[in-house]
């Protein structure tokens, strides 16, 4: 997705608190938007603070690209690290206007040519109409856009977003997704995006690092991570799911649907305002909402039927369910069905099946 090549972030750090310890020894290749995912209290924010240099007690090593930020006796203070940090609570300076907040960052971004110009950043985050406003009366979504713009103007080489969408409702989130997703390409900066919300991970990230009890327990593409039933134990209410990247091909206005193309096969999903033909959407399908059939079914209300091939069956020995992965034209769709059904239908790898997706089961896509 991103044009910029991956940059290496090395973290070796151990911090002990009374009831929690963070213990990281990893090299992460950062490209585009990398999700940092895990339960609350798992150390996500602590890890970001270590990277940014806000946690001065953290020993160990933090290196980004070719630069050591801390190593042995070296500790580069936060204000000398080329890292941008967007806080969950935005932390705008209340004594300055929106433009004043932006200029605060620009004025301190060092000499030389500005990679991210004022106009460009204001444009990217659509802040023209807000520039002269005070920050006290901004809405939650506006505050976060200003905070992101302010951080971009400090010309960071790495952008850390600490649950910036946590305070926003679903509609506001959907508005801001494409803006954030476009940042790495537009400004050539990789992003680490922290969240414990599955939909945010699915909509924004290309790869995901899972942090649990202070340790990185998994690191893979977003599709792979979200398809893992194993996360169920650590993430409350987590379900295996699948990510489908589709393109809008037709508006079925009288039906309030849009027809989308998924690798040559067609799906109909509920439409929502502002989705144009040709737009790329990312759909999130919970494995529990997916039905499998060995023959093409007739007389069903389900309209979305894709054909594919089973690639793996992963029974969960502690439950009635198994996750069946189906290859659909190169994409993987996961279905959570009972072990009983697996046996009754004689499902096994290599078998051709039909994947049934109810229109109502699609999470509202972030355009």
């Amino acid at each position, binding site marked *: 997705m991103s044009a910029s090549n991956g940059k290496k972030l090395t973290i070796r750090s151990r911090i002990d608190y009374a009831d929690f310890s963070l213990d990281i020894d990893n090299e992460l290749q950062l490209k585009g938007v990398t999700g940092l995912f895990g339960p609350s209290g798992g150390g996500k924010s602590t890890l970001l603070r270590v990277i940014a240099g806000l946690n001065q007690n953290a020993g160990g090593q933090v290196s980004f690209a070719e630069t050591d930020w801390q190593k042995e006796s070296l500790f580069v203070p936060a*204000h000398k690290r080329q890292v941008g940090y967007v806080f969950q609570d935005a932390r705008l300076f*209340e004594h300055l206007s929106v433009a004043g907040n932006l200029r605060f*960052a620009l004025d301190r*971004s060092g000499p030389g040519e500005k990679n991210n110009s004022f106009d460009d950043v204001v444009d990217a985050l659509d802040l023209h109409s807000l520039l002269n406003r005070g920050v006290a009366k901004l809405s939650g979504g506006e505050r976060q856009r200003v905070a992101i713009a302010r951080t971009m103007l400090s010309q960071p080489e790495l952008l850390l977003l600490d649950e910036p969408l946590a305070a926003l409702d679903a509609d506001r989130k959907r508005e801001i997704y494409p803006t954030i997703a476009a940042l790495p390409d537009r400004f050539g900066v990789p992003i680490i995006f922290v969240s414990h919300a599955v939909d945010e991970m699915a909509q924004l990230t290309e790869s995901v690092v899972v942090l649990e009890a202070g340790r990185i327990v998994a690191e893979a593409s977003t599709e792979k991570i979200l398809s893992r039933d194993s996360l169920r134990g650590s993430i409350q209410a987590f379900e295996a799911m699948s990510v489908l990247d589709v393109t809008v091909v037709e508006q079925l206005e009288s039906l309030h649907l849009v027809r989308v193309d998924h690798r040559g096969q067609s799906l109909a999903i509920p439409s929502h305002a502002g989705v144009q033909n040709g737009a790329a959407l990312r759909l999130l399908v919970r494995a529990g909402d997916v039905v499998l059939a060995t023959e093409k079914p007739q007389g069903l209300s389900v309209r979305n039927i894709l054909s594919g091939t089973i690639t793996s069956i992963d029974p969960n020995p502690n439950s009635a369910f198994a996750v069946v992965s189906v290859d659909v034209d190169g994409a993987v769709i996961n279905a959570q069905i009972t072990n009983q059904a697996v046996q009754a239908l004689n499902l096994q790898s290599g078998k051709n099946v039909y994947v049934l997706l109810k229109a109502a089961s699609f999470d509202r896509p972030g355009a």
Partner: protein
Amino acid sequence: MPDLAPLWLSLALAGVTTVVLLILGTPLAWWLAHTSSRIRPVIEAVTALPLVLPPTVLGFYFLIILGPGTTIGNFWVQVTGDALTFSFSGLVVASVVYSLPFMVQPLQSAFESMGRAPLEAAATLRASPLDAFFSVAVPLSRHGFVTAAVLTFAHTIGEFGVVLMVGGNIPGKTRVISIAIYEHVETLNYAAAHWLSAVLLVFAFTVLFLVYALKRRLAIRVG
């Protein structure tokens, strides 16, 4: 109309004390607001002592410590040619200590209520700690600064016991307004006492009125 020199002297003393305390009290308040050091309660107690001790006690110790026979007093005489006791400089030193809590406590609570969050944001925007202090912490704590400066100034104007112990009653040098009023009353010159008291009353009210009026104005964004 009585001699207004004591009024001007009080204003000069309060002004100099406030400026000196802004310079000395701000870093102390900052440290107290942010440190996790174990000696913090000790320093806080020492800072608050002038609130509790009778001014005569403070004044008595100053008289002992600042006298020309002591190291400090002798040093001062060597450098300036003048003694610290019974001089304006001595009054400033005593007033700085006497009014210390009135500067430090409002500032400390302003810094504490601001918290670290804005400073961390400033740091991630490449502001050095000193830069962040002046460009973020000071404007965000401006109410604290106004309150601290006004309280310090007003408290110094109202000083009596410490001044009497350390400075005595030398016209033009240490006879501040509170001492002048005391002396007028002692000598049964009630007319002059009335005058000075009324001037002080009007002055105090005017300053406080302006501050409260200004405070509302200051609440409006300045950038």
